[in-house]
């Protein structure tokens, strides 16, 4: 997984609403049609980092199967950060695909 993209994916996942760690991990897996395989544990340091930067805020809530779980929601600065990272990501994708496509079309 590309450096820094995990943060972006987490932020993106939280855009639809608060979620706990387990749900975030599955959401990333599901949405990417299982292409992005994350070791679910590595999500947690990332969550802590984002929390420290103030981009997401934690709260304790009850999960769908009635368990206490730590939920995260996107904060306004987080929303702004997501926009920045999305733009950067799109530019990167365009840039890379411009380099890659002609080579792929050649044969």
């Amino acid at each position: 997984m590309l450096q820094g993209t995990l943060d972006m994916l987490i932020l993106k996942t939280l855009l639809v609403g608060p979620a706990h760690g387990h749900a975030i991990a599955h959401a990333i897996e599901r949405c990417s049609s299982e292409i992005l395989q994350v070791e679910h544990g590595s999500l947690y340091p990332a969550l802590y980092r984002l929390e420290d930067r103030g981009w997401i805020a934690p709260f304790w809530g009850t999960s769908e199967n009635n368990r206490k779980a730590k939920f995260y929601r996107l904060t306004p600065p987080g929303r702004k950060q997501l926009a920045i990272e999305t733009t950067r990501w799109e530019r990167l994708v365009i840039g890379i695909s411009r380099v890659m496509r002609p080579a792929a079309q050649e044969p």
Partner: protein
Amino acid sequence: MRWRRFFRRASRDTELAKDIESYLDAETEEQIARGVSIDVARERARRKFGNATLIREEVYRMNRPQFLEMSHYKFAFRTLARHRTAYLSVAAVLALGIGMSVAMFTLVDAVLLHPLPFPAQQSIEVIWKTDPTSGNYVEEMAYPELRDLQDNIQDFESVAVMPTSLYGYGKVLQVGTSDPVEIESAPVSHDFFRVLGVSPMIGRDFQSSDEGVGAAPVVIISNRVWREQLRGNPNIAGEMIRLNGVGHTVIGVMAEGVEFPRGAGLWVPLGIEERVIQRRGATFLQAIARLKPGRSRDSVFPQLNALLKRLASEYPEVYSKSQRPVITPLVEYWTGSARIHLWIMLGASVLLLLAAAISSGNLLLSHTLSRRTELATRLAFGATGGQIMKQLFAEGVIIAGIAAAAGLAISGLAIRTLVRWAPADIPRLPEAVLNFRGFCLAAATAALAAVACSIVPAWSTVRTNLERALREGGRSSVSRTGRRMRSGFVLVQAAVTVMLLVIAMLLVLSYRSMMSADIGFGNRDALSMNLPLRGPGVFSAQTFNPASRRAFYSDLLKRLRESTGVTSAAGVLLRPLEGTIGWDVTYQFEVDPNQNNALPKANYEVVTAGYFDTVGTSILEGRDFGDQDSATGERVTIVSRTLGDVIRKAGRDPLGTRVRLGLGGWARVIGVCADGRYRSVTQRGADIFVPATQAAAPTNYVVIRGTRPTAELAALVRDTLKKIDSNQAISGVATIGELIDSNAARHRFNMRLLLWFGICALMLSAAGVYGVIAESTAERQREIAIRNALGAQKPRLIREIIAGTLALVLVGEAVGVGCVLTLSRAVSEVLYAVSARDPVVLGCVGLFLLATSTIASFWPAWIAAGRDPRNALSE
């Protein structure tokens, strides 16, 4: 933010653990829903999550600042324990430097930076006048001028007057039946303590009603006198004590440490006599003033100048038009000539600290370079450069910590030794103790040293070629930076050592010539003591008139001479080496008047018959004073050799030539004696002696010589005195030898201190050279072994090993000598009869350091060259 995280890291960890648990539960349930057994589900959940412990550790580490990582320090301690000797020697060297510089800083801090216990002392100024046309640097003031200052100078918050010199105001205190003691006392105007900003701890301050003709006699006593003479009686205020035979009411006890002017133990009101209060001609005072906040010396000067101008036109018969005010900050006035000495010492100790830092840096650098294999291995296993740097920094911090602690202990010892060595006339030195500022300095120095000792070697190590270091097994040639740095260290250290040693040697030589100089007093065992005759009043000596004083002295001397064991006894106006005080007189000879213009001022002394015999000043021509030189007889005088030569140059025989002192009458020269150095052992001058029988000035000192021990002689004088007048007391009992010693005390202090610094620097530099050679032979072990095996001559091998380093020492010496020559002007301030550019001293010190360095480098080189090549190669 970060620190909050740091302190909450434990609770966050529990939180994370709960969070992980909830993940695992959720995942397990999901797996069970897919139809697997509970154990398998749990297992799969765990696998999907990954290593929970590692993740918790990762988050835990995020919550902590990097430099606090204990693992580095634990590891550093283990490393230090393994390389004990190397690191302890580094710490010892550093501790020596820190200790000495902190000690010197503490002394300078006590004496120069915070010399007095007065609040806001930078706004206290001492004021006198000067008159360029008359050549008098100090024109003293009179009491009526106090009123002028109070009324005309707006910038003064308060102003007072005090005598320019404490000399002659001492008072004899007698408590109960104990022996009377003479105590330095200062007559001051009533605002004196308000100017200083202090007030009595018991009783009250002076007020204006304490001054004036007929005011009841009152006194404020110093804390020391209160404790030592009056047994710290807490109800002392209002009690009567006898001073000079007159009852005085004690109105207050001053706070601890206030002994201003120097050594004062009593303060009495100044304006209590008609002749003091009224007469503008009674000049013996200077003013001391506290400026209003925000006002400066520069703003006061024009006001004072204008005032003097106006007074000069109002009282043309008293003041000359050319008088100018002199304003001196109290701190400068107080520390005076001690300043330059202490600054030189501070400079020397900074050089020593530099030498110590260099030496320890050198040792540590050498040692780190020898650890390159270890560091390279750790780099190869994936440690980052940053981690290695942090690791070495942790080691540096520990070494510096040890050095700082040991340095503080050393400085505590050094301060006590220095205070004991120090001459008594450096004010406030005895109060110097290690304080918070000194501690901060030690800590700051240690921190700097830690950084310098660890980061620099670490940087050069991390930057070197990892692969080569590993392959060559640590025996490769050192990185070029490391080698260049070590060379630089050796060079700078040699320069510093040469500077310190040269100055120390110059001081030793000048002390020797100071002690062997013929200062004109041959009888070092002659005992001298102060006996000013005291009575009531400001000028207490004036209670006696010249005739009664003369009678008192001749009675006392007669009784003393008749006692058993006394060889001779005499009286003198001012004994030799009593300080820089003294009477200077102008004089003229009965020769061509033109030749009298360029004559230097002479030291004026009043002596009784037998004085020259007692102190051991030889009479070169003519005779001593005798009974024939009575008050009514012909005026006679004895001049010292310098003046005799002046007369002879004018073509006359000194004996029989007539001399006129000041504007007085003519006196005939009846003798020529050897020159005596009355003011200081380093100061030559001419002296003129007048017999006590014919002089208006008093004799204030008794000199006595005998076959009995000095303590018995002093007791004899005390007993004899008691029989004549129990209100008188002697003080300042000292032999001529002791006076010479205390006069040279400051020089001896400088000499000892610099000698000690020089020896320290020499040891440090020898240690540095030794370290460099030892390390370089270790690195070149294989090369040396191969050359040995191929039959290289041992002397040649040794020469090659040490030549480069010794060349560096030589270059360093040249730099050091250059520095001394540049500084020679400042250095010669503290020298006597020795040139700061003395080539013999420079050469000897250079050779000595070279010899020491050769010995220090020869030892490891000899061992390396003598090793069996088989052993060396197989390692």
